[in-house]
């Protein structure tokens, strides 16, 4: 029997009939219009004009200065600038500006490549949104977070800052896949949202799950689409725009939630309080992952959307106890039954096994990346890779066949770059570093700054080091147990749950394996799982002679610890403890409080 090729995502989802309430859209447009009018009225136009004038003057000064600098260069330096690009990236920032003053000059070849990728990204975004343009664009009139997505290309620029050659190419390939996934899901969110596209046909096919729950379970339901519910309105957008979650956090704290809780569930609940989540789907899979705060967010969800049936996927915390695995698999079975009952779809083992085979192959490629980065010539570094790894592990999970192509392409580029002993940040790489604990969302490109400013290359992050055992693709019972093992070892949970050894002893093991000199120890001020081990981590690091830089942050709230404060911790450590000089002094101190 000939196999029919299933397109991912199913084009029928985008073709599902919308049922927009135009009267409601009109009312909303009027309301948005009145807000814009108010904003225009309240704007101090004189000050606005002065600021723009100052910007123009500043641009003029900057251009003159840059011209002078280039003219003063020797012919060799000019050639280097032409081939390898600029080296002082701090000059791209301007106090009070939301974006950099201009794009980075990377040398002729890399700038041309970067521009091509910029065009390709815009092309993909436009093509994806065109699949159902009206509800997709209409989202901007309903949700303020949608506006932040307009700056996603700027986010891409930030994440590839300073990268050249193969590293730049790999970063672009990986972030393209993430943005395609986001764009497609944004269109589906818009179509399904009862306030907006209101497509009953599509909503029957949508299974929402908590953004902290992995997506692989949906591999067995090829006729449905799983959407990590809060990923687009909360989690991912907070990496693009540092100020996105501020209104959510303020709202839920005004509601009564203590300010010391993790900003992830706080923001999710805050988004519910101010009605920033679209209302769609046929059911919701909540989970107990990764930590205590996330467990509790589901009751807020149930209260806001009482019409949405909820299944609570709960896995053992002591996941290394083998006696708990069969019960964890039972929970997956119960979840599958729940999806079948609420949607009428049937679990498809063939589809599941096909996807998991692909996921296993992707994991093999991932392990090759690790092998390369463990050598003295690491190749695949930076925020795009960090994001890609987490997204692929958590959300994609082998479901999108197009991602496989990216894996292959990236692997080819990486291996060739390794043979050529390329440097992702040319002439800047000095220290081998590892990131431990959860990074700040509002500073997703911190590892990029570390590399560009101090030459600290983050070889791997804690959140990337998860389950790498190939998943069972033959035996159904064993497959469910493996799926449970995978879920139990989701990002963050793999380390912070199941006992201190998973995060403390594991760190020393990884430091040795990756031959690390510097540990960037993030301290999310609201993460109790990590905070309760700070003394032990500190003591053992001292005993073992590791250089550990503690960097406080508040995950999604830049008001508590700003990006500048985070950088200051590194600057201070490097200058006083390491007695080091920055590779790019212009990046030591700059202002990006308002910068997205």
């Amino acid at each position: 029997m000939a196999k029919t090729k299933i397109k991912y995502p199913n084009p029928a989802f985008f073709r599902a009939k919308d049922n927009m309430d135009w009267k409601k859209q009109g009312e909303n447009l009027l309301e948005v219009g009145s807000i814009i009018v108010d904003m225009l009225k309240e704007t101090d136009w004189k000050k606005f004009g002065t600021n723009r004038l100052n910007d123009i003057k500043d641009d003029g000064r900057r251009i003159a200065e840059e011209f002078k600098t280039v003219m003063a260069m020797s012919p060799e330096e000019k050639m280097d600038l032409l081939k390898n690009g600029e080296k002082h990236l701090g000059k791209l920032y301007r106090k009070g500006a939301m974006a950099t003053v201009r794009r980075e000059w990377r040398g002729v070849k890399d700038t041309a490549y970067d521009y091509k990728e910029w065009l390709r990204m815009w092309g993909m975004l436009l093509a994806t949104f065109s699949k159902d343009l009206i509800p997709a664009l209409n989202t901007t009139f309903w949700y303020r977070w949608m506006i932040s997505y307009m700056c996603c290309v700027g986010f891409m620029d930030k994440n590839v800052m300073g990268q050249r050659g193969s590293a730049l190419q790999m970063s672009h390939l990986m972030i393209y896949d993430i943005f395609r996934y986001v764009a497609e899901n944004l269109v589906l969110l818009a179509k399904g949202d009862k306030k907006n596209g209101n497509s009953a046909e599509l909503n029957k096919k949508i299974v929402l799950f908590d953004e902290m729950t992995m997506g692989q379970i949906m591999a067995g339901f090829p006729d449905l689409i799983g959407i990590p519910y809060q990923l687009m309105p909360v989690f991912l957008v907070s990496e693009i725009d540092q100020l996105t979650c501020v209104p959510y956090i303020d709202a839920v704290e005004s509601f009564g939630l203590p300010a010391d809780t993790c900003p992830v569930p706080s923001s999710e609940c805050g988004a519910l309080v101010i009605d920033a989540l679209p209302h769609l789907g046929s059911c919701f899979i909540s989970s107990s992952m990764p930590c205590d705060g996330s467990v509790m967010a589901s009751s807020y969800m149930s209260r806001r959307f009482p019409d949405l049936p909820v299944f609570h996927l709960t896995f053992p915390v002591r996941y290394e106890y083998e006696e708990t695995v069969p019960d964890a698999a039972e929970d997956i079975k119960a979840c599958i039954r729940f999806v079948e009952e609420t949607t009428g779809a049937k679990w498809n083992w063939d589809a599941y096994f096909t996807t998991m085979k692909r996921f296993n192959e992707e994991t093999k490629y991932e392990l090759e990346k690790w092998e390369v980065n463990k050598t003295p010539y690491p190749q695949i570094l930076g925020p795009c890779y960090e994001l890609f790894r987490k997204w692929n592990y958590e959300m994609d999970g082998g479901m999108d066949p197009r991602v496989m192509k990216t894996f292959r392409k990236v692997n080819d580029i990486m291996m060739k770059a390794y043979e050529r002993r390329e440097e992702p940040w040319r002439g800047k790489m000095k220290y081998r570093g590892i990131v431990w604990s959860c990074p700040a969302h509002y500073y997703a490109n911190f590892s990029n700054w570390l590399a560009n400013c101090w030459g600290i290359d983050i070889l791997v992050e804690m959140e990337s080091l998860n389950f790498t055992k190939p998943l069972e693709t033959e035996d159904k019972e064993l497959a469910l147990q493996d799926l449970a093992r995978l879920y139990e070892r989701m990002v963050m949970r793999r380390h912070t749950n199941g006992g201190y050894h998973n995060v403390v002893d594991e760190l020393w093991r990884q430091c040795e394996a990756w031959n690390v000199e510097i540990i960037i120890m993030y301290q999310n001020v609201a993460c109790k799982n990590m905070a309760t081990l700070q003394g032990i981590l500190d003591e053992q690091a001292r005993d073992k002679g590791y250089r550990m830089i503690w960097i406080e942050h508040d995950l999604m709230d830049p008001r508590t610890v700003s990006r500048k404060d985070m950088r200051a911790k590194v600057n201070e450590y490097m200058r006083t403890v390491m007695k080091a000089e920055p590779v790019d002094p212009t990046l030591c101190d700059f202002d990006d409080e308002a910068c997205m």
Partner: protein
Amino acid sequence: MRDLKHLIFFENLLDNADNELVEKAKADGGLAIGYTCFHIPEVLLNVGQCFSVRLRAPRTGSVDIATYYMSNYTCEFARALVERGIEGGFNFLDGLAGVDACSMMNRFYEHFELLKMNEKPNMFVTHCDMPYKIEDYTVRSYVKQMKVRLLEVMQKNYGVDISDAAIRKAVEEHNEVCRIITEIGEMRKEENPVITGYEFHIICLVSYTCPKALILPYLRETLEELKKRKPDPKPWYRARVAVVGSEIDDPGLIQMIEEAGAMVVADRFCYGSFPGREVIELKDDEPALEQVCRHYMEVSECARYISDEKVQQRRDTADRLAREFHADGIIYEQMKYCDFWGFERALVSHIMSEERGWPVLSIDRLYNNKTSGQLRTRFQAFVESLEIKRIQKMGGRN
């Protein structure tokens, strides 16, 4: 009212984890098994020669060393226990029955081992896995954990009898404690009760922290005394409140509420009597361990239970207790930095007020509260608001 005969004795018993009765039981060959969390069925720690001690850190002052290890924005209860352990306050223990239910308390158990707080040769610390919801397979898992990670460890390390008969015997003794505490607790329903919320909390706490066999004679005597105790001519309180929320083992907090004029008539918090002092009914045709585990899962009011029916149960229980004990309002409280109760308190204090019509005071608090002026002021203001509401209800007549 006349002072209760054993109240000072009880208060003294609460001054140390290693109290007079614990020492006596140990001298008689008993094995002290410490625990903190309700998820560990107390009765399972009272089998054979073992006796349970629910851990507290009374008279906690500075928690500086624990703060170094666990940072200053984590649960003060967990930190106080770490501090007390470092000071040697838990050297008397022969075992520690820990659960991985909330991350911060779990770290207490882990620091207990990491910092070598008690290095007796057979000392054990368990880390049992706890379910989040009640399903057939989660009950099975819970039973398995109690068997493999707790009872068999007790048996292996000390040769403890963990047979079905031993569990049933422990349940019998446990049930007598529960009957007495429940009977005493019921007295709080009276309009002019013969017991205060503070006295009841003290009695309830000694029933958790002392060996059952040794505290029982005192409890029996106190019950008899209360039956004959004459109340004051007029009720002493200005309002009646139910306290709902996370762990309270600090009688000073209940005392502070009562000093503000609100009698605590229902104690729906961890280390209180709801849940914890319900009789366990055992059938003969099913293993006692399974029945005990199911009982604890069903009566648990822990905010960690995520499933919809448990979420609803918590709201219904708070509402029911407040009604049954004729409360005028509810105080929702949480230990500062407690994630589970932080989320629960914020949401449910709204639900109780807006949907069920209860006046609600919503607070977060430290482990030790006796000196908190802010908290005292909030309690006083709440009592006044309850009084005003009552006056308004009566058409302006006091």
